[in-house]
């Protein structure tokens, strides 16, 4: 959407202007980061060592890229072929997501020149060590899952066969690695029982992180299908997306139910009577989960592209709210300090998001990401009414 095709519409120009402004501010923030260090480019402090670049860029970035492993599991391992048309966009999103997370880490880590250290200096007791290994290996798997799209574009059939030969163990490995590090991002915070506010600190954080990653991966699939349908003037695969909406409703229900049981067993509901910032942030986060879940159970909502899209966006925002609460706001009181990101932190984060949108757009345009596979012309997609207003783009 950002790097628009050369149409002379003013709306596109506005987007381009915003895109350029974001990248310019990001470039200046990068200069500050390189020359003046973390002190000159962030509002981090000894009492609050992790901020937006961890809370959003890493924790949300990895989660929002979870559609890759969810759909690979659904299509190739559970053999639900009907979801095939959205598999490649999901893999592309995941691959770009992990690249951007790595790029974001280069900003956040104090010594980016030593990013490779965890690969040779081991500490198996460290969750961060495990995450570093999983993310490195899974990025490699995603690269291999993405490569056939490139080979196909240039008509290289031999290498596609090679990758095809190792594809099943590779995909199983990818799903396992994702299971591990999606949950481990929650495990990271088990070490701060006295700092993280009790509405969020729970021994089941790893489980909650894993289930919510599956849900948001599905929501992102709906989100990106909707946007690419508009951007590329394709028909929206509505029956397919409606069916994903159904799976999303179930995944969210499971998540919310575990969340409810956890609060119940820890006797944590009393905390909601306190008039504190945390209470309101918690209620916002939960509302952004409950409302779309309830809506998605109605066929009327699932069949309406706009309503389905709004539900997916709510799930995504609810997910972001949750990760920011665990990674940032829920830690403020326990750390005895207040943190508001500096403008340069926001600029870098927005730049990463904008770059993600732009690269997705370019690859979607020039590579066979959206075509149905030649071997199996995904039946579900063919029935879509051409009158769908969104197909006009």
């Amino acid at each position, binding site marked *: 959407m950002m790097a628009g095709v050369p149409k002379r519409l003013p709306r596109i120009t506005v987007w381009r202007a915003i895109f350029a402004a974001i990248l310019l501010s990001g470039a200046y923030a990068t200069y500050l980061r*390189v*020359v*003046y*260090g*973390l*002190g*000159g480019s962030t509002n*981090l*402090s*000894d*009492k609050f*060592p*992790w901020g937006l670049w961890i809370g959003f860029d890493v924790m949300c970035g990895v989660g929002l890229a979870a559609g890759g492993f969810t759909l690979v*599991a659904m299509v*190739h*391992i*559970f*053999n639900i*072929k009907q979801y095939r048309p959205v598999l490649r966009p999901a893999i592309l999103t995941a691959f770009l997501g992990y690249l951007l997370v790595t790029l974001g880490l280069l900003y*956040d*880590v*104090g*010594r980016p020149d*030593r*990013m490779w*250290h*965890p690969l040779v*200096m*081991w*500490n*198996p*007791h*460290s*969750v*961060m*060590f*495990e*995450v*570093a290994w999983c993310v490195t290996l899974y990025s490699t798997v995603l690269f291999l899952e993405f490569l056939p799209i490139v080979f196909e574009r240039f008509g290289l059939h031999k290498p596609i066969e090679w990758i095809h030969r190792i594809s*099943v163990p590779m995909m*199983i490995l990818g*799903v*396992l690695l994702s*299971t*591990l590090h999606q*949950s*481990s991002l929650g*495990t*990271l915070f*088990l*070490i*701060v*029982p*006295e*700092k993280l506010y009790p509405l969020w600190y729970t*021994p089941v954080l*790893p489980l909650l992180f894993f289930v919510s990653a599956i849900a948001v991966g599905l929501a992102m699939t709906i989100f990106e299908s909707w946007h690419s349908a508009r951007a590329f003037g394709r028909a929206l695969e509505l029956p397919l997306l409606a069916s994903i909406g159904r799976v999303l409703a179930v995944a969210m229900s499971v998540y919310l139910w575990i969340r409810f049981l956890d609060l119940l067993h820890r006797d944590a509901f009393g905390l909601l009577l306190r008039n504190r910032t945390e209470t309101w942030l918690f209620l916002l986060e939960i509302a952004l989960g409950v409302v779309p879940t309830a809506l998605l159970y109605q066929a009327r909502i699932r069949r309406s592209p706009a309503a389905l899209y709004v539900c997916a966006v709510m799930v995504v925002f609810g997910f972001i709210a949750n990760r920011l609460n665990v990674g940032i706001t829920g*830690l403020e009181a326990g*750390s*005895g300090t207040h943190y508001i990101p500096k403008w340069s932190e926001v600029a870098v984060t927005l730049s990463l998001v904008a770059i993600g949108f732009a690269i997705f757009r370019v690859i979607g345009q020039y590579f066979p990401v959206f075509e149905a596979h030649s071997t199996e012309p995904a039946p579900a997609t063919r029935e879509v009414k051409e009158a769908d207003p969104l197909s006009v783009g």
Partner: protein
Amino acid sequence: MPRAILYDSTLCIGCRACEGACAKRWGLPYNDKVAAEETISAHKLTTIVTHGDHFCRRLCMNCLQPACASVCPVGALQKTALGPVTYDAAKCIGCRYCMQACPFQVPTYEWSSRLPRMRKCDMCSARQSGGKLTACAEICPTGATFNGERNALIAEARSRLAAKPDQYYQKIYGLSEVGGTSVFFLSAVPFEQIGLRTNVPREPLPMLTWRVLELLPDVVSTGSVLLGGIWWITNRRAEVARKEGPHK
């Protein structure tokens, strides 16, 4: 035998000699301006904090089972047999997980440096392994900071509490906090009144993440069998359907 530090707030006169000795040991500048800062930072690894009529010291607790060492992805932090938790700056990637994990908020960072390091007290590891006292204990004029064998210091602390029950709050801070530390505090008033965190868990923190991490081999092996099995079942079904399809 592991070593430790005993800080007795009732003996401290707030002269800040320990601050100066510590700065000297680390090669950090120390002047009136630094002395006035009552927080630890990358340029001040220990400090005296004034709480009304009482003083308290801030320094690394050198925990028996340190959260910082358990979370460090590159093993830059190590608990030594002698007691100190040491830091190898050459390994550190600057993820700052140690800072996030420390329940005492001890590790500090060189925020404005282009090649930043984490900074914290290491209980004068080098001095102690050479048979010397920590710089702060050596210079302390009143014996408020006392350096010695951990067990001997616990015994000493107990006898002080017993000898003057009306002068001491009858507890030793550091005995059970996060499973025990290598720095102990004695105080005339309850510990929270001299700024010590009393909400820290009694159990060692590394257990909290290890309980999950140790499941990793089980998850991977079970997951492989499960996913491989599901793939085998579902694709076999597709295969059969393909073969039988034309006959219908």
